[in-house]
Structures are given as structure tokens and as C-alpha cells.
């Protein structure tokens, strides 16, 4: 079999739920040894596509169409569980998004790998299977593989667990590896290690990869070819360099523009939100958000192109201006004039002196000393009016600890925070001058309150006419229609909910806004919008902002100053420009190098 021969052939694949069609007739092929990226935002149907290929859809979802795998005489769709089980894990391996939950918590990692080996009988004995599992973990560069094989999942870190999951997927040398957002939940440096590992190992063994991700830069560094999905259809496909450097479909172009967080410019969010599947417009699914849409778009466009693997599904793709057009690229003229640097001598709002947080661990023995966990080593930090400070670092670096201390939600074990020149904590009348936005916009809004009540909550007289007016004003400021105030949080999308959380935080006109990963739960197309909202609030009202993020691009885009934390210690701080251009600490260098960069 020569490389380049089709390995996986998907034709007219559909996935239906009881109420809507979620995948709307897509077709693509993956050749032997080829790495294909499947790009899309949440709800685009990319994960369903992968699951449908292996017959792993939830009960209640019905697939249609055809999925053929080279060397298998039957169609994978409609095959029996017995037939599919012989293929899953043997010919096709799969890696999922959440390494923390993808492994069975009550079984040892090694036994979870050998289970797959024994099941398909690729090793003669139990001992040989055990050996193979350890060798595999070693190949996946897990330190102390023998010990790791004997560990339970909770004893390993996220990166180590994901290597375990990868071990399960690769244990029988599959021809195809399907990765569904394999590194989204991991730190940047670990993300780089894992993607390098996937690319390296699959390159070496000629394994084809179907790589699902919302991260365009990451896909560009992994894949030969990409498929862009929107609303259950493939809107564009082609070689990665062509699609990402010269995108033809308005959605691909908008997505690329939304991802471009060039500092000093304004990223362009895609107008509107990703519609729920039952609300998708007939014809072209993107037409209700597309700047180029007209009446022709009411009919569904077929994927067209000179070659079958280089297509675009848009009626107007020939008529679009050349990429990057001025209207689609980041708006460089709309930067705020001379904002940066202004903050140096403005009012000092918040300052910490030797702020420290140590936790006492559990006693190890009956008479043993309690171990100390150093969540945050002494840190000095000033936050001035109009200043935007970003805190970056990987999980366990102490970012959230710092934010909780600043917000007065946790007590320091040493040192303290001075708020507005006083040391009496943020509650002593300063409560409304300091507000917090949390990461999860679903979990941080009371599900039983209407949006209007949520936003009015921090206001002094929250049932008054003045409060009503203020809420309407805030809704407008965060770009939501007035009637959104009458809804409940679950009736809104993730991006809308985060905007409500921000409106709620801005309601009492705080002097300081603290934000913990404000955009990490959001899709790319709404991320830019939320970032701009935060930025405008600081400029217009001279508010100080302290943002925590694991995403360095976000910090660079949003902040003037950056603090780099590692293992509870401040390793570097400085202006965003200086740190990005000339990082001094080796860890900062490592972090910056690990950020996936758009290749084309």
C-alpha cells in the first residue's frame, strides 16, 4: 500500500438528534500517514463527526451516510458493535480532550493500556502485554514508565495522564489516530510536548491523524491539510498553507481575523453568536453573520474547487476582496492613543507588601510535622488607576491564589494588601470599588435570577428606577439587547454570559476589576469582543485591571504590564513589550517558545 492512498473515506455523513440535524452531510478523506485538521468552534459538529466515524455517538443521536476504512469490507456506519469493537483501538485509536477524566479512576494506568492490547490479542501473553505497555509509556517519554504503569490516574499530572491516554490509543499501532482537542486542557509547555509527541510518533510510524481543534495556530503546526467546519458543514478544505494563508470562505477569514490578537490593534469579533443547530439559517449556515451574504445564500452552496481536496462552499468566494483585506484584518487605526505609560504616576489603588500564602498540609504520620505547601511566596505589587496588569503562569503557579488574596476572598498567611491607601480589607466600604470576574460564566451566575437582577445586585438600591436605568445602560455597554435582561443565564450563550458577568462587575463603577481567565471558556469568535469590552472599560473610566490567564496572547493583547509566576514565585515582571521582546528568565523564554504560532 502506497502512502497517499485513502485510509478513511467519509461520504455524506449526517448526525441527527431528535430536534435538529447536527452534522449536515459532510465528506472528506484521510490518506495514509496524512495529518488532517478539523477546525471549528463549539457546536460546529467536529467532535460528533469523529465519534460518528467510530460508532461512539450517544444514544439518541442517529448517524447517516457512509464511513469506509481501507481494508474493511463493511461500512463503519451501521456495522454491529462486535464488528466495530474489532476496529476501535486496533485500526483506529482515539484521544480525548479531558485527560483528567478520560482514564478510569479505579484502575491502574498500565492495566488500562494492557486491556486494549489483550483485547485485540496483539501480544501473546499477559506478561508481554505488560512489557509492551511499559515500553509504550517510555516511548511517550513518561519519566519512570514502570512506576507510572503501576500508578492510579489521580497520582499523575495532566500531561502524564494524557500520555497514558495516548498510550491506550497507540497500543496496537493503529493506522489512524483521532485526537479530539488533545491539549486544550493542558498548560502551554505541556501542550507543546504532547503535540510534538503526537506528530513525531505518527511521522515515524506512518500513522494518519485526524486532529480536531479550535486553535488555528496549533492546527497549523500539526497538520498537512485542514477542514473548516461551521454549523455542521465543511465550509472550506485544503492544504493547511493555502487555507490559513489565503482563506476563501468568509467564515475562515473571520475566524482568522478574530484569532489575530496583534497588540496595539483591535481584533475583529465575528458579529452575532454561533446559532443553535435548530436556529441555523437555511442555505448557507453562516449567512446570518456574514458581511457578504445576499439572497443567493438562501440556497445551500456546494463545496467547489479545482481539486476534490481543495474546496470552498460559498457562492461569493470569487468575488471577495483579496486576503487580508482592510475590512477583515485587525483594525490598527482604532488603537487607544497614548494610553500606555499614562498609568505610571496615577493614583495608587491597590498595593501588596510581602503578600504570602502557605497552606499547612495534612500530618503525614501520627507525630510527623505538617508539610507546608507554598502556594504563593512573598510578592510586592502595585496597581494604579488605568493600569492593566496581566498575570501568567501554568497550573499550580499561584495565579488564582494571588487573585483570591487581592479580592479578599482568602486570608494571606503573611503580608497584606492595602486597598485605596487603607489596610482594612476590601469589605470595609471598598467592596463595591473592587469587583471580580470569574472563569466559568455558567457557574458564577445564579441560575434562578434574571439577568437584570444579577446585574443590579451590587447596586445600592437595586429595585429603584435609577438602578433599572443603570442596568439598561450596562447591557448596552456590553453589547446585549435590552430584552436580554429578562432572561435567565441558561438561555444565553457562553459569550453572552461572560458579558453579563462583566456588566455585573462594572455595575457599581469599581476602581479595580480583577478577572480570572475571563475568556478561556469562550469561543474564538466572541473572545475578541469580551477582551475589547474589558479594554474599553479601563480606558474610558480609568479603572485598574488585573487579569489572570494561561493564554499569553490574551495578556499581550490586553495588558501593559505582565507578571510571570512559577511554583508560587514571581520569576519576571515588566512591561508587555519588554518581556515579549527580551525575556530575561529562562522560564519566560520557555513559556513564550511553547506558544503555538501560526505557521503560514
Amino acid at each position, binding site marked *: 500500500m502506497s502512502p497517499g492512498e485513502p485510509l478513511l473515506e467519509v461520504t455524506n455523513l449526517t448526525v441527527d438528534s431528535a430536534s435538529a440535524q447536527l452534522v449536515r452531510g459532510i465528506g472528506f478523506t484521510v490518506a495514509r500517514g496524512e495529518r488532517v485538521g478539523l477546525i471549528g468552534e463549539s457546536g460546529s459538529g467536529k467532535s460528533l463527526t469523529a465519534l460518528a466515524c467510530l460508532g461512539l455517538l450517544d444514544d439518541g443521536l442517529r448517524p447517516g451516510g457512509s464511513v469506509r476504512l481501507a481494508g474493511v469490507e463493511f461500512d463503519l456506519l451501521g456495522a454491529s458493535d462486535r464488528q466495530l*469493537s474489532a476496529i476501535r483501538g486496533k485500526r483506529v485509536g482515539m484521544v480525548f480532550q479531558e485527560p483528567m477524566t478520560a482514564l478510569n479512576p479505579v484502575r491502574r494506568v498500565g492495566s488500562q493500556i494492557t486491556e486494549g492490547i489483550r483485547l485485540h490479542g496483539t501480544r501473546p501473553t499477559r506478561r508481554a502485554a505488560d512489557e509492551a505497555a511499559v515500553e509504550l509509556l517510555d516511548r511517550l517519554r513518561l519519566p519512570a514508565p514502570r512506576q507510572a504503569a503501576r500508578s492510579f490516574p489521580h497520582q499523575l499530572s495532566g500531561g502524564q495522564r494524557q500520555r497514558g491516554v495516548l498510550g491506550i490509543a497507540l497500543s496496537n499501532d493503529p493506522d489512524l489516530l483521532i485526537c479530539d482537542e488533545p491539549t486544550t486542557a493542558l498548560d502551554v509547555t505541556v501542550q507543546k510536548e504532547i503535540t510534538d509527541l503526537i506528530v513525531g510518533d505518527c511521522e515515524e510510524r506512518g500513522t494518519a491523524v485526524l486532529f480536531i481543534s479550535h486553535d488555528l495556530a496549533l492546527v497549523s503546526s500539526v497538520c498537512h491539510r485542514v477542514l473548516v467546519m461551521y454549523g455542521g458543514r465543511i465550509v472550506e478544505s485544503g492544504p493547511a498553507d493555502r487555507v490559513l494563508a489565503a482563506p476563501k470562505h468568509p467564515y475562515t477569514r473571520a475566524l482568522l481575523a478574530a484569532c489575530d490578537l496583534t497588540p496595539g490593534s483591535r481584533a475583529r469579533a465575528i458579529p452575532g453568536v454561533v446559532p443553535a443547530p435548530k436556529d441555523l439559517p437555511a442555505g448557507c449556515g453562516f449567512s446570518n453573520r456574514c458581511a457578504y451574504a445576499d439572497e443567493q445564500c438562501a440556497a445551500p452552496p456546494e463545496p467547489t474547487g479545482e481539486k476534490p481536496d481543495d474546496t470552498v462552499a460559498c457562492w461569493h468566494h470569487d468575488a471577495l476582496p483579496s486576503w487580508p483585506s482592510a475590512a477583515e484584518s485587525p483594525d490598527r487605526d482604532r488603537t487607544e492613543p497614548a494610553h500606555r505609560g499614562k498609568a505610571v504616576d496615577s493614583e495608587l489603588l491597590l498595593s501588596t507588601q510581602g503578600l504570602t500564602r502557605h497552606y499547612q498540609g495534612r500530618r503525614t504520620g501520627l507525630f510527623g510535622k505538617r508539610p507546608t505547601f507554598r502556594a504563593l511566596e512573598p510578592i510586592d505589587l502595585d496597581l494604579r488607576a488605568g493600569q492593566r496588569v496581566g498575570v501568567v503562569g501554568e497550573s499550580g503557579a499561584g495565579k488564582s491564589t494571588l487573585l483570591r488574596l487581592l479580592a479578599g476572598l482568602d486570608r494571606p498567611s503573611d503580608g497584606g494588601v492595602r486597598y485605596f491607601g487603607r489596610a482594612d480589607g476590601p469589605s470595609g466600604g471598598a467592596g463595591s470599588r473592587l469587583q471580580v470576574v470569574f472563569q466559568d460564566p455558567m457557574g458564577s451566575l445564579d441560575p434562578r435570577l434574571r439577568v437584570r437582577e444579577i446585574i443590579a445586585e451590587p447596586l445600592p438600591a437595586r429595585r429603584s428606577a435609577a438602578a433599572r436605568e443603570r442596568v439598561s445602560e450596562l447591557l448596552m455597554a456590553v453589547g446585549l439587547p435590552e430584552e436580554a435582561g429578562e432572561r435567565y443565564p441558561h438561555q444565553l450563550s457562553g459569550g453572552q454570559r461572560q458579558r453579563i458577568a462583566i456588566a455585573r462587575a462594572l455595575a457599581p463603577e469599581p476602581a479595580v476589576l480583577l478577572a480570572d481567565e475571563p475568556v478561556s471558556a469562550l469561543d474564538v469568535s466572541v473572545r475578541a469582543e469580551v477582551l475589547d469590552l474589558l479594554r474599553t472599560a479601563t480606558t474610558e473610566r480609568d479603572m485598574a485591571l488585573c487579569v489572570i490567564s494561561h493564554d499569553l496572547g490574551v495578556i499581550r493583547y490586553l495588558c501593559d504590564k505582565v507578571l510571570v509566576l512559577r511554583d508560587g514565585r514571581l520569576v519576571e515582571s515588566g512591561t508587555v513589550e519588554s518581556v515579549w521582546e527580551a525575556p530575561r528568565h529562562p522560564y519566560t523564554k520557555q513559556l513564550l517558545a511553547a506558544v503555538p504560532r501560526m505557521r503560514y
Partner: protein
Amino acid sequence: MNHVVRRTATLLVSVVVASFVVFAFLAVLPGNAAEVALGTNATPAAVARLSREFGTDRPLLVQYADWAQGLLHGDFGTSYVTHEAIGPRIADRFAVTAWLVAGGMLVALLLALPAGVLAAAWHRTGRGALLSGLSQVGIAVPAFLAGILLVYTFAVRAGALPAGGYTPLTEDAQDWARHLVLPWVSLGLVQGAVLTRYVRSALLSVQRQDFMRTARAKGVRRWAALCRHGLPNAAIPVVTVLGLQLSNLLVGAIVVEHVFVIPGLGDLLLRGVQDRDLLLVQGVVVVLVVAVLVLNLVTDLLYRVLDPRLRSR
């Protein structure tokens, strides 16, 4: 290990506290043992003499210490009413109730495990709904009603099994089993119905977890994944319920003993209450309390066997 020691220490403290509470509660009830023994026409002098003889005229703490010390040696004292040693009577009866409860639980498990697995696997299908409905009905039926219906069907109409009574295991094993089948089933049916729902919902929530998909993606068949990966995880919440149910069963057995005329602890307890035999009641209640505490300890230790995440803590 550390944990086992800690938990056992807690258990011992609980036993002491519980025994004191039981003692104190019964001691403050009006009417002392001597008055009860001598009847309503007794002279105060006679009551005082008998009180001295029983030792019930001593301070409460001394009485408790005396009683508790006896308990440590397995001596439950001598009944004020029948003048028999209480310990051996409780021991005999406890064995009967223990068999009843253990068998009832076994029936419940044999019923609930397959029914729960099937109900989870057939989730959202007609068959699954039927099983869920049946278990709902089972929960609504009290054990004594189930017992009476079973007696009517199998003993009165079919005449296949005895309607009541008891033969010790040591005398005739077959007869022993024939007498216990109906009580076992009537206890097990109800508890099994409750347990079925817990097994089903635990499995359903496990089924939605990512590792189940990982298992299927490596080629494990649907049913095998449910049994090999689903059940061990679902077992953790189910064991919690099981522990609570065992305690319930111990108490619930009293009713079933009454329906089937089985000479168990419940029967003894009722007789003790009727005869105002305080010492006997105290003894039975303490045994029940200790049994429940021990069952809790076993449940707690079982968690750590089932869940490695608890072991490393």
C-alpha cells in the same frame, strides 16, 4: 493503616457513648424494676428491699459502670422478670436475626445488580422504563405487606412453604432454609427495589463519563465496558446506600419476624417491652446499636478498597 486505627478508635468511643445513652434513657423512665416485679400492691419496704437486692438503689453512674463492665465480659446481667441470664438469650436470637438480614440483603443484591444494570443499559427504551416502574412499585410496598402476600400465595394457596416458625440451622438445615425463604424474599424484594434505583442511577452517571468512552474507543464491547469499567465505579455510591440499608434492615427485620413468627431479636425486644424487662431491652438495644456502628465502619473501610483516590489521602 493509620485510617483504620483512627476509625476503630472512633467506633469504640461511639459504642461507649451509645451504651451510656441507652442506659441513661431507660434509667430515667418512671417505674423502677422492683415496683414492676412486685406489682401494684407492694409495700414501700418490700420495694426498697428488692431494689437493694437488684442493686437499683445505687447511684446511676455506679449502676452503669457495673452494667458496662459486665458487657465487656459478655455478661448482660440477669433478668429482673424471668431471672434468666440475658446474654445467652440475646446471642441465640441475634443469630436468627443475622441470618434473616444477611439473607434478605443477599436477595436484594441478587435482584438489584442485574436489574439495575439492565435498567441502565436499556435507559430510554420501553424495557428500561418497565424495570424502573417495577422498582418504583417495589419501593412503595411495605415489607410486611409483601410478607403477607407471599404467605398467602406460597404457604396458604400453594402450600409449598411453611407460613411461619423457625428451625435452628444446627437441627435441620433444609427445614431452616424452608422457613426462611419467604422472610428473605419479603425483606429482599423491597430493599432490592430501592437498591435497583441506586444501581441504575449510579451506572447512568458513570456511563456519561469520559473514561467509559475511552474504554469503548479501545475496543471494549458495550456490555463489557458497563461491567468492567462502569460497575466498579458505580459501586462507590451504591455501597453508601447498602450500608444505610443494612442498618434499616436490622430494624425492619423486627416487623418481618412478627409476620413470620420468627424468634429473633425483634421478638425478644417486643417481649422485653411488654414485660417491662428493662435490662433485657437495654441489652437488645445495645447489641443493635453496636451492630449498626460496626456496619458503618465496614462500609467506610470498603470505600477505601473500592476507591484508590481515598487510599492515598
